């Protein structure tokens, strides 16, 4: 029984779900039953009228139903999921590499520049999504702009905007480690700054950086979702003035959520539910992955608490077995 409890479920579920998502991102469009421009023709079958908006699981051809204009929701999702994953991954990659590089090196300095600290603090006050709102607001509605250019623009702006927070947290960790005695010993033995960073500090941080990377992916998706609620969809927004609807060009999942937001107040809420639940699955699979990794690292490296805290991990530690020297 104890064995069953001590399995790191969240790690394995996270890995499985992430693998499925990556598979869908690669092969999604070729699996889609319809193209993005095909619509449901209103028809009369066995005494019932099939007309958009079609609820899910009523027709075999349109498994997840259609939106108000008759476009297939399943196809939209399969086309859009690669944008969501690719964009969030690209943003995270850029900001994490730049941010950790700066943070690791600045952490080894004797004194942190006052200006940098003041800038980080000021930046952390303003919510990121607000900055992006002002940057993307005028651009996203541009008619006949190339969606790829807009996606590229978002990736660049979003990564630059979120670098300061990464720098600040990596810098603090790196600073903490660089005060320890083994760093001093290495310095006395003549190690230069690069060696200190890459041979002594980085190996201590690589686990927490990995967890941070996965959690930052979730953060980027959350950022995209917040923007989508403000009708700013990554890759461009189409605004139909006559009926006052906003449409996502790339069909990126958070964009679909934002576009379907108006359906809260009607009886076609499923148009909102389907992309929202998918987004929930995407974010929770990454969170599970991060949580699983964290459990593993924590149970391996953490000191056991002396008082009962209620937060003790159940997972068994994974120890590296050193080879016996012969």
């Amino acid at each position, binding site marked *: 029984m104890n064995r069953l409890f001590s399995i790191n479920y969240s790690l394995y579920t996270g890995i499985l779900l992430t693998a499925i998502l990556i598979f869908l991102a690669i092969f999604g469009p070729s699996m889609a039953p319809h193209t993005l421009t095909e619509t449901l023709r209103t028809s009369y079958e066995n005494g019932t009228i099939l007309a958009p908006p079609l609820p899910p699981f009523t027709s075999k051809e349109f498994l997840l139903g259609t939106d108000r204009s008759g476009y297939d929701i399943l196809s939209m999702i399969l086309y859009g999921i690669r944008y969501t994953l690719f964009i969030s991954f690209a943003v995270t990659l850029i900001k994490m590499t730049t941010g950790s590089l700066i943070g690791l090196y600045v952490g080894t300095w004797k004194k942190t520049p006052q200006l940098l600290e003041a800038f980080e603090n000021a930046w952390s006050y303003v919510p*990121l*999504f*607000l900055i992006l709102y002002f*940057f993307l607001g*005028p651009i996203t509605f541009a008619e*006949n702009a190339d969606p790829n250019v807009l996606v590229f*623009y978002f990736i660049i702006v979003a990564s630059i905007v979120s670098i300061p927070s990464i720098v600040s947290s990596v810098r603090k960790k790196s600073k903490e480690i660089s005060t320890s005695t083994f760093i001093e010993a290495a310095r006395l033995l003549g190690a230069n700054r690069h060696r200190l960073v890459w041979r002594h500090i980085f190996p201590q941080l690589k686990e927490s950086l990995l967890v941070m990377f996965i959690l930052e992916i979730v953060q980027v998706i959350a950022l995209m979702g917040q923007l989508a609620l403000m009708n700013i969809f990554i890759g461009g927004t189409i605004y139909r003035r006559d009926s006052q609807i906003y449409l996502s060009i790339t069909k990126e999942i958070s964009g679909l959520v934002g576009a379907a937001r108006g359906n809260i107040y009607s009886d076609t809420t499923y148009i*909102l539910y389907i992309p*929202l639940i998918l987004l929930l699955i995407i974010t929770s699979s990454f969170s599970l992955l991060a949580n699983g990794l964290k459990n593993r690292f924590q149970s391996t490296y953490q000191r056991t608490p002396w008082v009962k805290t209620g937060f003790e991990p159940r997972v068994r530690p994974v120890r590296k077995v050193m080879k016996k020297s012969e």
Partner: protein
Amino acid sequence: MRIIQQAIFIFLLIILLAAIPSILIVNPYELNIYLDFSQLGHLYGQFMKELASGSLGTYQLGDQVRFISADIKSNFLISLFTLLIGVLSAVVIGLLFGIFLSRFIVTRFFNMLLNILSTIPDFILIVFSLVLAIKIYEVSGVRVISLRPDGGALNIWYPMVLTAIAPTLYMFKLLAVQYYQTSGEDYIRTAVSKGMRVNYINFQHVYKNIEPFIIADLTKVVSLAIGNLFIIEYLLNVPGITKFIFQSNQFQPITIGLFSMLLISLIVYFSIRLVLYIFKRGFIYE
């Protein structure tokens, strides 16, 4: 010195942000994006002139042009109370369930719930709770929320709860991790071996060592709450300070709105510091 630098940075950031809708221009024919700074001086001049003449200027609400100064007071208070209650509940619930009550089996269940909720991004929680409120009305006929700006308490209480969710989850997670790490330290072992009670250790040893982390992350918590407040006020149609920011693209209301937001966050920050100080004086040093 650092505080002055910070203030200057925030000031610059705000006036730059507010000006972006006016200076960022997309050329629809050649499809390129460029920054047009020629308007910038004019904008700032106008803003200063408006302030110097003693008025806060006007903003556009639908078809009518209204004076900002006529509406700002009530909007400011609504945003302030929403944010204050959100952050306060974050600190209180975080401390209670993250440290002082976390060891009991009854609260273990609540902790699990918080842990699960904290993996869900805030905006999904907001949308889901909006759906929930509407469904409750559909099923039982009980009106939980009102989207009318003049709805009174019915319009205000739900946004307050929603604003509290994200910072509470963040604070809880932070404190749980810190508590777990602190409790492995040697001074805790010394305290335990001296036969001190767990509650005493939590107050005298654990809390004192965790407080710096709370204060350090308080800005993050406030910023998190503000970010959510923007979305919630927008979605639930609350007559808060964000009205000035999202209703129009004019420089004047956006700047005024952002500066009032800054003022609100400062008030919230310092009142939480005060609460923590009183808690420390009252319970720990007695």
